[in-house]
């Protein structure tokens, strides 16, 4: 077990390294840097001015060097301007000087860089936005998982019954409704003047300070709906498989009531597979969060990613990508370990 976890963590670190490098590579392609230079300087910069700006800021260094600097394993880039003032990533006026500033200044030292869109430290922006998204995701999961498990178990316990068909059709329909479709329909029906039912608000901006029934229901329902169908179908498949197992048949022949079989015998084994699926929902949840936050104007992590990407805010985009990749990889790790842990056949051997 220990060896297994160690190996998984090793693979995870290697994956994280490769993925951050790819993101770094793509954000540092020359046209992106050119756009950055023009947004930082002015839009009518000549090609030579762009190159000199980028050279001064250290963007023209070879890619591995830049990546090493960003990661914090190579000394940071510092520049001295015409007046003899030295500037660099970790040199902050009033805090330290060019001499006392740390030489290594990267993600490993906890320095996420500076966001050119929000004019603030990227690390603190990410932390704040992640907190906001955390609440939204938590509420969505709190709705999605119980609903999906109940639907899946009810559908799977009698495969092929009318109940199964009705609930399965519902889960197929819900997994055919991406967030941008359900969100649009929810807003139109429940929040627009066209239908007249102004039950909820079409914008969740006010939910960032304070949740109310009116401002958070629609975003939560939008995120949850797309996930419910998928998790419910997985639960149904797993439940249906367990219900045909030999030990369930034995229990039936012994005369155990159907309800008892479902609750006491089948459920425990049937919930192992959905656990993995739920954990693997996180990457999809991220897409859902980005769409929902954009649609409802909830300024969380997904909204931040959109802003960073559309303005090529390199430091913020990289930071956000690292967080997203780590969330995905950690949930995959938990899902793998959890699967082994929950499944006695694997755990004991």
């Amino acid at each position, binding site marked *: 077990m220990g060896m297994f976890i160690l190996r998984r963590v090793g*693979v995870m670190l290697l*994956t994280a390294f*490769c*993925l951050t490098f*790819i*993101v770094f590579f*793509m*954000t540092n*392609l020359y*046209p*992106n840097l*050119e*756009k950055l230079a023009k947004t930082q300087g002015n839009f009518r910069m000549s090609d030579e001015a762009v190159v000199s700006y980028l050279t001064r800021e250290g963007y023209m260094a070879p890619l591995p060097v830049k990546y090493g600097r960003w990661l914090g394993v190579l000394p940071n880039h510092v520049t001295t301007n015409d007046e003899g003032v030295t500037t660099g990533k970790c040199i902050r006026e009033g805090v330290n000087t060019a001499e006392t500033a740390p030489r290594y200044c990267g993600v490993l030292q906890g320095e996420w860089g500076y966001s050119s869109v929000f004019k603030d430290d990227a690390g603190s922006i990410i932390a704040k936005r992640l907190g906001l998204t955390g609440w939204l995701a938590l509420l969505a999961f709190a709705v999605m998982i119980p609903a999906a498990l109940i639907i899946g178990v009810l559908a799977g*316990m009698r495969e092929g019954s*009318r*109940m199964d068909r*009705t609930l*399965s*059709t519902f889960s*197929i329909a819900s*997994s*055919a*409704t*991406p967030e*941008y*479709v359900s969100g*649009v*329909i929810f*807003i*139109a029906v429940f929040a*627009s*003047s*066209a*239908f007249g039912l102004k039950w909820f608000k*079409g914008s969740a901006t006010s939910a960032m300070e304070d949740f109310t029934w009116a401002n958070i229901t629609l975003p939560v329902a939008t995120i949850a709906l797309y996930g419910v169908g998928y998790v419910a179908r997985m639960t149904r498949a797993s439940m249906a498989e367990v219900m045909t197992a030999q030990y369930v048949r034995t229990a*039936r022949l012994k005369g155990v*009531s*159907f*309800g*008892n079989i*479902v*609750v006491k015998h089948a459920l425990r084994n049937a919930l192992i597979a959905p656990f993995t699926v739920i954990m693997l929902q996180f*990457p999809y949840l*991220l*897409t859902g969060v*980005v*769409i929902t936050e*954009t*649609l409802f104007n909830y300024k969380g992590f*997904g909204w931040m990613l*959109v802003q960073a*990407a*559309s303005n*090529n805010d390199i430091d913020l985009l990289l930071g*956000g*990508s690292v967080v*997203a*990749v780590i969330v*995905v990889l950690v949930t*995959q790790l938990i899902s793998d370990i959890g699967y082994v842990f929950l499944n006695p056949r694997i755990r004991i051997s």
Partner: protein
Amino acid sequence: MEPLTWTGALGTLLNPLFALAVLGLILAVAGYLLVSAYENVQAAFSTTSGGIVMSAPHSESLARFILPTAVATLGLGMIYLLAGIVTPYGTAGILGELGVRFLPVWIALAVTFFLSITYKRKLGLYGKLFDSPIGMFGFAIVMFWVFTAIFVAMDLIITHDPLGQVSGMKNKLPGTPLRGAAEGDYTHYLLGGDNLARDVFSRMVKGSQVVLVIAPAATLFAFMVGITLGLPAGYFGGKLDTIISFMANLVLAFPVILLFFLLVTPEIRAAGIAIPGTEYIWRVPTILASILFLFPLVFLVVLFDSRYFTQPPKRNLYVGLTILIGGYIYLGMAWDADPLGLISIDGGVLIVFVSVVFVNSPTVFRIVRGLVLDIKTRDYVAAGQTRGEGPWYIMLWEILPNARGPLIVDFCLRIGYTIILLGTLGFFGLGLSSESPDWGTTINAGRRLLSIYPHPAIVPAIALMSLVLGLNLLADGLREESLKD
């Protein structure tokens, strides 16, 4: 011209009946589910019942209402849509006139279903689909959109120019008469106008074309890539498998939305490697396309070569034809260097296509690899190996045909997923031009005024949902029928 209402004069008679039928259906289904769930929970906690509960009495009596109310709802719905064909223009309202516009689609659907059901015993898996009501329903929805896309190409269904702006029609509600309609113009904006005063209905049907060309083609390419890599990875295993699997997991761990934001930008389309000594710049979309589009070519060449290498004349013919035709298409699609100048893809569409293939192929790879690992332990594979068949013959002509069931089902599901991905790209305004009538872009354009004028966003949203739903139901029906034998 008078504005059209949703159901017109016909509605005064039909609306109450329809409302009654829908209400009945909702009550029957919801009531059945609640009562049945309650009965199951009760059975679980009652200690007295010793045997298996075979039938739940109350829920069954409610269940009997589901079918008749569903039939009534569907039947009345069809009257709404089809009545316009026989009544004068405008009597049957917007729904009736929509039904008239879709008349060619109804005829084509009726012919398809009549022929398929008549000959269903001779049609293999496709014919068996017509034994499953769910599969049939899904197939009908999918074919509805396929026929719509085809007939729009023949200029049939569409009422106005999807890009044409008419002054005074901005954000107009469904059924608004066209201002200043000339002789021969269609007199109404059936589903209203969008914020640039274009006809929502025409854009929606035109958009089906974009979606139905890109999504199945991208899925097919993703399958070619996934199969070409998954077969050897599963069959040979070892280092090859480890490397390809690691790479597939790398792509799978990448959040899709992030990949789109990094890959589908105008800057990336401009980026590339300058080939030394020439003016040519190898752009990122072309780099990706030239790698990904090579897989179908390799797949087909190996497919024919492994089959016919004992008959050189036949082999040379097939492989030669593949390289000639495939190479021609490859040059045109990936390199934009078709010698005859016929095949060419716009840069925006190409990067969208490539990134969708790129996102989908690792999942297909994992599915194929899993299937191969299972099938290669079968006796017929061992028999083939003993006969001295080559590994590629076994992979492509023994294993692949036996994996077709799950692959066909996944193909249907994956087209649906690809449509959702394309919609996501459109929703963020990535890739396709903002004028493009595809559904994602239209939803994006409509969402800004959603709380005042919801119709420009809702129409494409429902179209997209219905097509994906149709594909999912079709996949479900196919899975059920393919498991039966």
